[in-house]
């Protein structure tokens, strides 16, 4: 019986890993866009890199201390951000492919903002597994800019809230508008 359970655990390992990796999005390969873009931010930090970075955070610096608070429990941070000098120089289809991944079970849309006037959109999604947040995704598009952020791990919005003022970010009104107050779409 013991051996059977051990065998079962081994056989189920890939499935467990797949479930655990649910919050990881497949981000589009946008290498061709780098030449066209005015500004490019491509950040890929897996668990090892986050651990490495954490070792170089200075506890005496406010922004480093805040970052340390936020990253505890995170296993991946992926950012793709491109800025162009002309409107909609980027492939919208690639952004839609990422949006489609966020329609999978487990992802909940916290915020959806659309502005026809500014032709911009911001979506914030949270991946929830057994009532615990294990991932965050942000897709923000403007005519000349788009940003995709994928954070994997135990995302704590309160800790994110602690970032206010540390990186020049104004205070977030998380208390005033909780995710339950603003369920958009879905």
């Amino acid at each position, binding site marked *: 019986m013991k051996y059977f359970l051990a065998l079962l655990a081994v056989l189920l390992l890939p499935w467990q890993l797949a479930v655990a990796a649910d919050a990881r999005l497949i981000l589009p390969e946008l290498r061709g866009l780098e030449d066209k873009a005015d500004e490019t931010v491509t950040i890929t930090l897996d668990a090892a890199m986050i651990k490495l970075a954490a070792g170089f955070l200075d506890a005496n610096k406010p922004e480093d201390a805040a970052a340390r608070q936020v990253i505890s429990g995170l296993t991946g941070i992926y950012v793709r951000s491109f800025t162009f000098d002309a409107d909609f120089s980027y492939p*919208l289809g690639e952004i*839609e492919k990422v949006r489609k991944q966020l329609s999978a079970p487990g992802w909940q849309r916290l915020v959806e903002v659309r502005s*026809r006037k500014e032709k*911009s959109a911001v979506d914030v999604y949270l991946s929830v597994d057994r009532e615990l947040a294990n991932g965050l995704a942000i897709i923000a598009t403007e005519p000349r800019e788009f940003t995709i952020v994928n954070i994997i791990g135990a995302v704590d919005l309160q800790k994110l809230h602690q970032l206010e003022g540390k*990186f020049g*970010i104004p205070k977030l009104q998380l208390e005033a*508008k909780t995710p339950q107050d603003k369920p958009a779409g879905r």
Partner: protein
Amino acid sequence: MSNDIDEQLRAALRRVDPEQGFAQRVLARIEVEQRQRRPRFATRLPAWLPTRARWLPVAVAASALLVAVLLNARQVRHERQGLEARQQLIDALRVAGEKLDLAYRAVNTESPPTASDDTAPGDTGA
């Protein structure tokens, strides 16, 4: 008087043949002196060490120096990678925070905050 001095000088400086074996003794002494001039590390080596292995300490020292240089280079590379990772982490959190702030500001300033007031869901306005 002067003749006596001349005689004495002649007697003192007269040609004398070297003793038998003089040349061999000179050569032997030269060899001994050359041996004594060898570097200290070589003279302190154990006698059983073969002559070819006399460069062993130099090789060991060079290897130790090489290892030290490599370890230092590794440490420098690790530090550079760590600082780059830290900067990337700060940048990533900054971008995430900016976009979160954008969303929350939009939600808090619009009333009522219905998502699809302007456009249909998923419409980027493009």
